[in-house]
């Protein structure tokens, strides 16, 4: 996997976990700088606050407001070490299990408290997937 174009192929790309489930997009990439050594691609950052900083002030304010309303404790940023990247194709495959990730917090909360309350919603755990 040499010769990867970070901006074109990785930044803002779709991320999928070990089981090909979507876990968000590469909202930012952290580069570790050190003297007389090439910049190291440290991690992929995922989360609303990261996106908000890139978009602008209004997005940052909105993001804080949403987090306050949601009373979310965690700072909402998931840091995926770049070493966990397995494949860069139509999506970036990361050797992790998406379930525990902070970035899935809203998805899991909605699934449990809202969606699954409605009949025909299926089972958020590992029930059959397709309609």
């Amino acid at each position, binding site marked *: 996997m040499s010769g990867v*174009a970070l901006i074109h192929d990785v930044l803002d790309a779709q991320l999928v976990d070990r089981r090909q489930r979507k876990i968000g997009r590469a909202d930012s990439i952290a580069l570790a*700088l050190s003297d007389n050594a090439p910049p190291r691609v440290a991690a992929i950052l995922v989360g609303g606050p990261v996106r908000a900083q890139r978009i602008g002030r209004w997005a940052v304010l909105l993001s804080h407001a949403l987090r306050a309303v949601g009373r979310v404790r965690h700072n909402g940023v998931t840091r995926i070490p770049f070493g966990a990247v397995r494949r860069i194709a139509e999506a970036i495959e990361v050797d992790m299990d998406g379930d525990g990730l902070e970035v899935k917090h809203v998805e899991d909360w909605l699934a449990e408290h809202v969606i699954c309350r409605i009949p025909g919603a299926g089972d958020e755990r590992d029930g059959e997937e397709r309609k």
Partner: protein
Amino acid sequence: MSGREVRLERLVGRRVRDAGGRSIGRIEELICGIELHEHGRDYVVREFRVGTFGRLDALSGSKLVRELLKTLGRVSGYRERRVGWQLMDLGDPVHPRLRGD
């Protein structure tokens, strides 16, 4: 100055100036490769692609316009130059400078 971390998007489209302060273009891409060593492998930035937009350089502020100009290619006067990581001084990520000899 070691151990600092910078976000990639802060480098996207940044103007790079040489030792004399002249702009040599904007950062358009970072090419990274694998570096193997004893405790595993690292992904490191090997080179920077710096693009210049010729006469239309004044317009090259926005990402959409830069991408449109790059699509037009030579017609728009777009030229891309490769800069090895050793030559790129990211001390101040907002003002990348070329390490001139």
